[in-house]
């Protein structure tokens, strides 16, 4: 229920316009949103809806063309590199393709060490750092002794994605953006990834924002769902409201187009 939890990350009129010569593309069109602490939010949209651009703006990787972003109730200010670094202690991301998220020339230890450094652990003794990394790997059911000194391509897709989650465990951000975290993972491993993310949320009270095209995924894990089409939020509300009682035509079509098991999947609507 709104008002109970604090607004953690919100935006008004957020816009991103890409210009190339005379042409301009409006990727994100004046969106309003309000994410509360501890919530699980999903932004559902098809490819080209602008959800990845929105994610990049939220992360501070892309500069918005218009609108405001509010972080912890105050206007977000990430003008200088120092402020950006500070911001990134509170907000992190998991990407869709686990393999391309790693630098293939560095061993996987580097990724975890970077996180320890970011939390100020640069001067910790080696043994303590190994302990932290082992703990993080243990959380995602990986054994650090087996993974240390390996290169990313020596791990499977599922292991790579779980290592990304271990990274988040080390950083303990207040808000995590997960961009299609399971679309490149097999069906049997999906539940594992989702489970771990939920566990993380429960342990540290993290807010999670899922960015996905899979409306079923959105329904199974989220509290709040936003439906995005052509850069705009066409519908939003609690998961039950949006998925079981959709109001907008686009939302209805999106739900109707996904195959069902216990309900009838009507093919005549295309």
């Amino acid at each position, binding site marked *: 229920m709104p008002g109970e939890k604090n607004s953690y990350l919100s935006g008004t009129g957020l816009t991103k316009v890409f210009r190339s010569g005379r042409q301009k593309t409006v990727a994100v069109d004046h969106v309003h949103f309000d994410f509360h602490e501890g919530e699980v939010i999903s932004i559902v949209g098809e490819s080209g809806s602008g959800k990845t651009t929105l994610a990049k703006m939220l992360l501070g990787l892309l500069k918005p063309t218009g609108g405001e972003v509010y972080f912890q109730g105050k206007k977000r200010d990430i003008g200088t590199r120092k402020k950006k670094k500070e911001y*990134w202690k509170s907000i992190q*991301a998991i*990407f869709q393709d686990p393999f391309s*998220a790693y*630098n293939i020339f560095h061993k996987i230890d580097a990724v975890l060490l970077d996180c320890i450094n970011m939390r100020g652990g640069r001067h910790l003794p080696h043994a303590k750092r190994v302990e932290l990394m082992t703990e993080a790997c243990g959380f995602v059911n990986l054994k650090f002794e087996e993974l240390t000194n390996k290169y990313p391509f020596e791990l499977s897709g599922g292991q790579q994605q779980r290592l990304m989650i271990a990274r988040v465990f080390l950083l303990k951000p207040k808000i995590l953006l997960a961009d299609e975290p399971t679309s490149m993972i097999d069906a049997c491993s999906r539940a594992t990834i989702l489970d771990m993310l939920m566990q993380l949320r429960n342990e540290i009270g993290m807010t999670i924002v899922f960015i996905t095209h899979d409306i079923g995924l959105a329904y199974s894990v989220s509290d709040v769902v936003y439906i995005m089409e052509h850069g705009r939020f066409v519908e939003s509300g609690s998961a039950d409201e949006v998925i079981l009682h959709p109001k907008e035509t686009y939302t209805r079509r999106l739900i109707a187009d996904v195959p069902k098991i216990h309900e009838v999947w009507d093919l005549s609507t295309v």
Partner: protein
Amino acid sequence: MKHTIRQVFRSGKFLLGFSIFLALLLIMIFYPLIIKDAPLAMIGRGTFFPPGTYVNVYDSIGSPHYTLMLDDAAANRIASKLSNDDRLAMRDWLVADGIPENQIDINDTKTLLDQWENNYDPKKQVEGMTLAKQRYYLRLNTSLQGLLSTEGVIIAANNPQSGALEEADGVAQTDYVNIKEVPNVRVLPLGTDNFGRDVLTELVSALATSLKIGLVAGMVATLIGLTLGLLSGYIGGLIDDIIMFITNIFTVIPSFVLLILISFSIGQEHRGAFTIAVVIGFTSWVWTTRAVRAQVISLRNRDHVNLSKLSGHSVIHIILADILPYIASYVVMAFILQVSSGILTEAGLSILGLGPKTTEVPTLGLMLNWALIYQAPTLGKWWAYIPVIVIIALITFSMNLMNTGLDQVFNPALRD
């Protein structure tokens, strides 16, 4: 990394190019250790000595003589003195005399001489022969008589006391010397050039210089190209605009013209090999910059770069750790191409006379320049320019082959 290196050395093209290059390098390194002469020493008084083994005649007189009875000695002697024109003339006379043509072989000296000896008679009248021609045949016959004699030669020297010419020694036609016992023998496999310099020694030294120039030019160009490309590709914005502006200026001005102008203005005095190399480097970085920039632009939006940013790394760290390794293979190939083009550019400059100073070190281009100025092609002195051309071709071919081999390893899509 190890896996890539293993694959590189399995690529046929790369191995071929690498072996040629290595062979040239080894020659370049070991030749000066064996033959310690200065490359620009003018050892020949006279121009364009043909390739061969040069034996000191004075020493061969004084060396121990050995008598060898060889069958074809006389024939060889005469064969070398009888020009092709003379042989044709002899054949014409014999045919006119009535000998069937198919019995005459102008290349078989012995038989030809026998036939001539048996049939020639100055008094025989041949139809249609002019007086001049008759006299020519007479002269030919007399010289042949001289050749056919088996008399030796007498060497006379000045008696240091009386000042008169005295008989000192005799040399028979069957006297031979062992080259190994002659103290002064010099093999000039490629003869000498117009200045009388040993072409082979000069060539090896020129190869070394040209390679060095190519390397320096390549490094300068690649470094400039890499830095500018990385900065303009990753940072973008105003820096990108400025760098692209500079690049465009350098594209519009033809680099070779620019090189000529710079070379000319530096003046003959200051044009050392190293200076030229740096100048070449400074005018050929454009292509590398563009290529690196394009690669960097496609890399900067990758997930691992974003992750690095989220992990708080600085711009320099991201460029060096997340972008540079990914374009490293490309840069290596660009470097090889720059070296090869540097060598060619220097050759081009030197042919025009705008290359490094001519008095210090030879370069491949300079050798070609001299050959052209002193008209070696017209005079038919092939050893002054053809070996140079072959070496230039081999070096650029081997480098390009290595490049293609590397390309196939780094771009599996190109493998056949």
